[in-house]
């Protein structure tokens, strides 16, 4: 029914115009909306999958509370930032950058972290996951054990909160071990993240208390080298 179809289109157009107009006035009074919102990614395994290395209680809090809070606070900070941008309030924008770096970094880091881990039974050796990656580790550190020792030493020495990373230096075409403070993402060092180990106390305290080196010794039992290999392949392509 042509007439009805045309009417329908007109009605839809009128509704869109009303919505657009409503959005414009809302934008004027309340500031612009942020471009996008971020969501907490699902864990690729059950909360208990990493037992006994990282227990269910830690995973529940770490993913469901800590990471979720970074996501919520990132979204809130970005809303405020969009608002400040709409008002051309540069001082306010600058004031929000700390919260964006912290919560955005927290979201980025933890999103990588969950994929870097897997159940102990699903772990494969680096040589099986990627002969190329394994060869590079051996070339740069002498052996996988020597690599782990240096990684753990440097990561245990992080003062306060932070992360230990295996990263890829695209320019030098080499692997590198690096540590970052707080939630600073590895991108701030110019390296591409392959494997991150969280050494904020919330990552291990309920199980390991102050004994961070023990957590670092055990965590290799849940490192998902297949994922590390995928990241390495993408970074070194």
């Amino acid at each position, binding site marked *: 029914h042509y007439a009805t179809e045309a009417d329908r289109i007109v009605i839809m157009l009128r509704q869109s115009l009303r919505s657009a107009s409503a959005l414009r006035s809302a934008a004027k009074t309340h500031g612009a909306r942020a471009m996008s919102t971020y969501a907490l990614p699902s864990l690729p395994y059950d909360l208990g999958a990493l037992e006994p290395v990282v227990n269910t209680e830690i995973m529940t809090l770490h993913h469901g509370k*800590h990471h979720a809070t970074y996501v919520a606070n990132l979204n809130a900070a970005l809303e405020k930032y969009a608002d400040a941008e709409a008002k051309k309030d540069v001082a306010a924008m600058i004031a929000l950058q700390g919260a964006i770096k912290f919560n955005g970094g927290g979201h980025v880091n933890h999103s990588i972290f969950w994929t870097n881990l897997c159940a102990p039974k699903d772990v494969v050796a680096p040589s099986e996951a990627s002969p190329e990656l394994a060869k590079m580790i051996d070339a740069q550190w002498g052996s996988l054990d020597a690599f782990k020792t240096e990684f753990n030493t440097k990561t245990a020495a992080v003062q*306060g909160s*932070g992360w230990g990373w295996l990263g890829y230096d695209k320019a030098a075409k080499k692997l590198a071990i690096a540590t970052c403070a*707080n939630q600073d993402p590895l991108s701030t060092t110019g390296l591409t993240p392959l494997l991150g180990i969280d050494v904020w106390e919330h990552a291990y*305290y*309920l199980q390991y208390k102050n004994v961070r080196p023990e957590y670092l010794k055990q965590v290799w039992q849940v490192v998902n080298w297949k994922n590390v290999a995928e990241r390495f392949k993408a970074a070194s392509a």
Partner: protein
Amino acid sequence: GTFIQAAEMPIELPPLPYAYDALEPKISKQTLTVHHDKHHAKYVTVANGMIEGTDMSGDDCETIMMKAHKAGNAGLFNNAAQSWNHAFYWNCMKAGGGGKPSGDLLAQIEKDFGSYEEFVKAFDQAGQTAFGSGWAWLSWDGSKLVVDKTIGAGNPMTDGKTPVLTMDVWEHAYYLDYQNLRPDYIKSFIEHLVNWDFVAANLAKVKK
């Protein structure tokens, strides 16, 4: 009392000013045991190891901390400052503490913050927005009280201020009891733990 050092003596690990279960249920016996006997103790041990055989081996903790800061010696600063910070923190708490202070201290807080409630808001915010491991501080800056937050081992003395109150917001200070709920720990600290007598004594000493 806690900071008197004999010549040529290492930094001391002072005992807690109360029993390990004295702050229950706001801070558990388990937390105080690990926090004091492991974390604080390790900072003292490492700092002593670092100053042994140096010209700082007879200095008190505060002096070592300031010398390390001046020399840009991050490792020694971290351990000496954390030794100082924790010794100060234990004294900033007591069983049945918290609530509103009184006398000169309250008058000064009201003068510099407008009200006790405004101070609480500022101190709470400082604790909540220390993005990582850190401390919230109430310090005398020479003419007034100010609230600061520091990251890691940071101490306002490096800015020339005199701390009168501190609250540890490293996760190890509260994680066993509050998990991710740092705001609840801060609320407990302010409402039930702050040792205002110690804070008042600190303020009186620096204003003299």
